[in-house]
């Protein structure tokens, strides 16, 4: 009797928790869906770097930070999904440099974009992250050693990264981060739908469900 009472209470509590969190996440998803319909600009700004065809019907918006380790882990995964679905997915990168000093790396990346080497630089940054951003111990001077691998002019980057236009981009992105309640990086939205639980499998399923919806076989 006693065991049953405690056991049933446990189950009820766990059930309440699961139902509560599902309810909350559905509410959030609806809210974001509404935001996406009302104000697409929140997700894709004119300044946002994009990859993939303009005709793509699935927009994958990623809030990221070049110094974020998980973003680096997800990058090849996202690339693979895009390669598997050519022309159907458009990747939009947004910045969410949460850690102190992380915005400097966004500035470097944006400065490289002025030289037309955006994706090459991002690739090098992700691949060499353990050298210059090991456990959030940022060492920008070590980044200068590896960046030539992306074919960029380092001296020019050092000048361009302080361009106020770049600071403005970060400011706008951080404002959208707040509106969209992005708490962690990478933060994903697929056609405005947020990733409810974090993980590669979950991201894959979310993208796949949007692909199925937009490209009916």
């Amino acid at each position, binding site marked *: 009797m006693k065991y049953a009472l405690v056991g049933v*209470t446990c189950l009820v509590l766990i059930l309440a928790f699961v139902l509560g969190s599902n309810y909350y996440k559905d509410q959030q998803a609806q809210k974001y869906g509404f935001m996406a319909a009302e104000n697409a600009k929140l997700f894709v700004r004119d300044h946002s770097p994009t990859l993939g065809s303009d005709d793509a019907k699935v927009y994958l918006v990623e809030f990221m930070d070049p110094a974020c380790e998980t973003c680096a882990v997800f990058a090849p995964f996202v690339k693979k999904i895009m390669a598997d679905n050519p022309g159907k997915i458009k990747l939009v990168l947004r910045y969410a440099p949460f850690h102190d000093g992380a915005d400097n790396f966004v500035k470097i990346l944006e400065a490289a974009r002025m030289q037309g080497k955006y994706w090459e630089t991002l690739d090098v940054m992700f691949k060499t992250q353990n050298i210059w951003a090991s456990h959030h111990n940022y060492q920008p001077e070590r980044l200068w050693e590896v960046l030539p691998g992306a074919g960029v002019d380092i001296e020019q980057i050092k000048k361009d990264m302080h361009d106020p236009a770049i600071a403005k981009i970060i400011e706008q992105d951080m404002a959208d981060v707040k509106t969209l309640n992005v*708490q962690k990086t990478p933060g994903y939205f697929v056609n405005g739908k947020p990733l409810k639980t974090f993980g590669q499998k979950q991201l894959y399923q979310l993208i796949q469900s949007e692909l199925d919806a937009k490209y009916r076989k």
Partner: protein
Amino acid sequence: MIQPDKTTNTNWTLLFLCWLLVSVSAMISIFFSSVLDYVPCVLCWYQRIFLFPLIFIFAAGLFPTFDRSVIKYALPLTIAGGLTALYHTLLYAGIIPENIQPCSQGVSCTEKYIELFGFVSIPMMSFFAFSALVTLLIILKRRTSK
């Protein structure tokens, strides 16, 4: 068959209530941090440290029958948790000035997340829960020491 007398039954129910209160509190706490993504501040973490083990201590005291020694083990945790919650509530309300608070990095302990009915903050809920636990345990202590 041993016939459980009425007093033991009431004691068991009181302890069960303690366990229920602790479980619900822990669940709400985890809901705030994992589902609503409220990042717990340092003081919240101290209160959680005092709160979470109580689930298992109370549960252990419920079986196979009510064990009064559970009071001895649970009281220090509840009192410590209650004091931390009291400090946190006062800090949050601005009665203790913020500049002496220990959380300079990460989330501020006075960060506003939710306020039920306009004034019940998270630290206040924690304080209510710990106070209720201390009260229940003292009642149990009185009942069993006769």
